[in-house]
């Protein structure tokens, strides 16, 4: 599709979720979408900033929006839903509240109009469209029975992120079904996994993650598909501990949506970073040709 997108990686993708970055980059390259990293981007402050100083939180995001505008991007991809929501929230304020816009522009020392639209990974696949996705498939995902997990922030708060239906989202299902996968109906698609509380409140995160994993299994899923680095940490990296607390829970692979799109269009596990996951991928379910395993 030959598209160039501004790219805001955020700290997670440049840190312990580097597998998400390789997955997105490899996958989008296959569709001729080039990501250009925002020059001098700063951390959005995540939950820490909006928890203790909402103005700081908006200012950090506003700085990134101002850089994106200066560099002329019409769209900025922020694959982490927390970054994405924070950027959308700042943009919402900039567009709706002139007094606040001026204040933010002063603080971040750059002109600020809110021109650049912020998008998530699902929106990139939706803009590629099901028809083109289908055309690119080399390895249909016929054995995949995915529980599509949106978590909290891809769709919430709806007035800010303006994406899909916040109680019954189905965009991920549409993308995966175009690749030949089936998806299960289940109850925890938008329930919270505990997000960034992994370190500070580990036991709670384990209980929340357990409910999500167990519900996916109970509804016949053979994997969970996510689009958020924190969801991946809690469901994948912490899964061993979750299973220690709940020994009856079977092992369940957790893929990024871009992993599955990538595998379907013929990329290898190692190109996408799937081999970096803690719970090993069950590649049988991808019915991959032997030499790519």
């Amino acid at each position, binding site marked *: 599709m030959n598209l160039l997108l501004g790219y805001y990686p955020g700290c997670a993708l440049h840190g312990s979720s580097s597998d998400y970055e390789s997955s997105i980059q490899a996958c989008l390259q296959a569709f001729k979408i080039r990501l250009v990293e925002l020059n*001098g981007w700063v951390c959005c402050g995540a939950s820490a900033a909006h928890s203790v100083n909402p103005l700081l939180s908006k200012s*950090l995001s506003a700085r990134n929006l101002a850089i994106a505008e200066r560099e002329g991007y019409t769209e900025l991809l922020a694959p982490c839903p927390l970054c994405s929501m924070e950027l959308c929230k700042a943009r919402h304020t900039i567009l709706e509240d002139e007094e606040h816009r001026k204040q933010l522009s002063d603080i971040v020392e750059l002109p600020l109009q809110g021109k650049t639209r912020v998008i998530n990974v699902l929106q990139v696949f939706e803009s590629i469209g099901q028809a083109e996705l289908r055309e690119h498939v080399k390895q249909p995902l016929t054995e995949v029975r995915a529980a599509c997990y949106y978590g909290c922030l891809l769709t919430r708060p709806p007035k800010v992120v303006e994406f899909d239906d916040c109680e019954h989202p189905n965009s991920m299902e549409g993308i995966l079904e175009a690749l030949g996968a089936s998806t299960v109906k289940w109850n925890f698609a938008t329930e919270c996994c505990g997000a960034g509380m992994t370190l500070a409140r580990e036991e*709670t995160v384990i209980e929340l993650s357990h409910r999500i994993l167990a519900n996916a299994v109970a509804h016949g899923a053979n994997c969970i598909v996510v689009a958020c680095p924190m969801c991946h940490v809690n469901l994948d990296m912490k899964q061993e501990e979750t299973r220690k607390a709940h020994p009856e829970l079977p092992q369940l692979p957790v893929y990024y949506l871009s992993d599955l799109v990538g595998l379907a269009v013929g990329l290898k596990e190692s190109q996408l970073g799937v081999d970096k996951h803690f719970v090993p991928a069950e590649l049988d379910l991808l019915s991959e040709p032997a030499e790519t395993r």
Partner: protein
Amino acid sequence: MRKAGSFDKAVSALRIERCYQCGKCSAGCPMGSVMDAPPHRIMQWVGRGAIDRAVNAESIWLCVSCQTCTARCPQTVDTAGIMDEVRALAWREGVCSPAMVRTKLFLEAFLDSVRRHGRLNETELIAKYKIRGFLSDYKMALLLKDSMLAPRLIKRGKFRLFGGKSGDRDVIKRIFDKCEKVAAAEANDKTPKEAHHG
């Protein structure tokens, strides 16, 4: 009673007075079962001016900002936004229930790192959080926990010892300073706290 100040203005802009106490926010809150006061209770306290009870609640530190409450409120109250405002007020006033000190230390360590580098340095975050956490409660088990995780992350190429740095670190420091100045001015915008009222 506190003087009507920036806090009241902020929560009013988030439509606190529209709350009719239906409890829907608490019903869907993922942290509700471990909170001492679920979100609708915090909304009730804030709504009737019992701010001291709200800032002393453990729940403001347990809230994970998942936005479920805000998304579902039938009265369009920005419940999660109000949780943020209460937490920010508690932060400014240095109030934190003892059981929640670790969460607060985590947020502090996170912001320290962003202020210094413009981006998060995960090694620094974990080290600072663990050490400060240990100094606050001397729980050795928590200090050592996760240390086994590091080698596994390194093996997967998922651990960058030296995090990235933003090119515009001077600007970042100025942004922090300006925002903290505004927050400090707001903190002075109130009469001193009155104990447990409401």
